[in-house]
């Protein structure tokens, strides 16, 4: 049996299309899906004293919100497929986390949606898809 298909998911339309694509692919390959949602986070950002004190509580809230508002609807939407889907929520830099989780879980490929902002913003800050294809060690599919 081939390794699972990893999908980077943020609740946006392109990421929905990526998930649909992954479902079709996983069905035909008879494998499972890992649904990864990344909360952007840098351990080198600056926080105020109060934010530090509340950070642990905030993190719990953010995780719960990601679970209920992002992953749960997605899982419900594709539950009819009957595939085994493992949800993952992680903090960090999107592309780096996707590549790392893929490695840890022995995924065969990574599927992400294109965020569509191909303009100046993407050039300045780099898009997840662009970074991912630079650092991934397994094939990546960018769903338009």
């Amino acid at each position, binding site marked *: 049996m081939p390794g699972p298909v990893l999908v980077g998911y943020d609740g946006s339309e392109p990421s929905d299309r990526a998930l649909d694509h992954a479902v079709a692919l996983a069905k035909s390959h008879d494998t499972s899906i890992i649904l990864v949602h990344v909360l952007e986070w840098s351990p080198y950002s600056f926080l105020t004293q109060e934010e*530090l004190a509340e950070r642990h509580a905030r*993190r719990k809230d953010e995780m719960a919100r990601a679970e209920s508002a992002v992953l749960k609807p997605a899982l419900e939407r594709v539950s009819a497929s009957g595939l085994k889907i493992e949800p993952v929520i*992680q903090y960090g830099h999107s592309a780096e986390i996707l590549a790392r989780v893929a490695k840890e879980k022995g995924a065969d490929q990574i599927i992400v949606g294109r965020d569509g902002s191909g303009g100046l913003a993407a050039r300045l800050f780099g898009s997840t898809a662009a970074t991912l294809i630079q650092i991934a060690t397994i094939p990546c599919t960018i769903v338009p």
Partner: protein
Amino acid sequence: MTHSRFLLAVMALLALAVPAQAQGIDETVNAIFANSTGWFVSLIFSNFPGTSFPWIVGWLVIAATVFTFYFGFVQLRWSGHAIALVKGDYSDPNDAGEVSHFQALATALSGTVGLGNIAGVAVAIGIGGPGATFWMILAGLMGMASKFTECTLGVKYRNEYPDGTVSGGPMYYLTRGFAERGLPGGGILAVLFSVFCIFGALGGGNMFQANQAHQQLAGVFGDYPGWITGVIFAAIVFAVIVGGLKSIARVTEKVVPFMGVLYVGTAIIIILMNADQIGWAFGQIFEGAFTGLGVAGGFVGALIQGFRRAAFSNEAGVGSAAIAHSAVRTKEPITEGFVSLLEPFIDTVVVCTMTALVIIITGQLISDPETGLYVLTEAGNAVQTIDGNTGVSLTSAAFSSEIDGFKYILALAVILFAFSTMLSWSYYGLKAWTFLFGEGKSKEVVFKVIFCLFVIIGASANLGPVIDFSDAAIFAMAVVNVLGLYFLMPIVKRELANYSAKLKSGQIKKYKT
């Protein structure tokens, strides 16, 4: 928000009604302030019988020395590991999103790097001469061990509330640590610490900042009454801490580190521009350290000033850092202790020394060319400077003498540093306040309003009484905190032994290679 509108209205009224008596207000505030705090200041700064050496300075130096030896020069042996921790080499990726070592250190630093490094150093050199620098650096290096001890305990005994927020600091380790060791008196020490911490927050963490920020502004815009600066600052602080205007706090938090880098960078450039003088400057520092080079009180005078300003700047042994560092997420409290070692190093050994070198190298202090000794002012208690500058204006003059217009950048830096230090200390003070009086919105607002009022007092009063009270309150915190640390240091030693065993056995491993 209605509160801040109200305050703005009061401000407007004040501005209309009393410009004529402006200087009068400043003088009255100053007189009341000096009279009501004098006894406290003289108690803290009284000398060892028969000497001119304040007992409190000895207290801190002895503490730092004891911790340095007790933990086997922890500041030398574990600094490399501290840097690895800050880089995140040992952070579990699954803990991402929690407070990192870097964040805890950065926030703690933005509370300490500030006026102490710019104005405080100038005060030390203005009174104690270049030799004060030597003692300041030494105190900074030794202080690393004090900081290590208090921050380890701060994390170990912090209080975690059911909702996941944390509070830590000496109040908590004094009560819990003492209880755990079966020692009496922890509760009393915790209460005393909290009282002094509130004074410290209002003094060094507030009035001194407001005072020096005003001196900066007056230097740029021309002389005007201090209470005006005070009211404006108080309104902004009020908007942030009472009105919940987080955006201002966030901007400050992000700009301050860049200002810090800019400041040190400029200092390095000025020092390099005068590269031929570096040897001479260090000569003055070493000679002054042991002879005084004519300053008031001789070498003891230089030493006292150096130690005083170092303690005021890096706050090692004071206990405030234990509050700041306590929010980090780690399974091993001692890791935050290691990280906190870096704080006095960056603050005192790097930043303060830069200020000192710039002042010395640019020749701000007047010395007698024949004897090589420094010339004292008429009052005989400070070194004469080129334009009679003291405190932050001395630093400003030193930087501007080499880089034209830097005084404007420095003024901005001072104001931002003052503001971020105020915000940090309003938090420390608040933690002490809620420890004493309990949590609750209305109780917190009472403290925050008092805090804002002291901003105005600080900006209006003269530097002398403000700086004395600020130092006295912060040192009073250290009296209680250090006493507690002596009783609790075996706990830290046990943590240190456990941690090094785990590191050796590979139980604690690097995640990044």
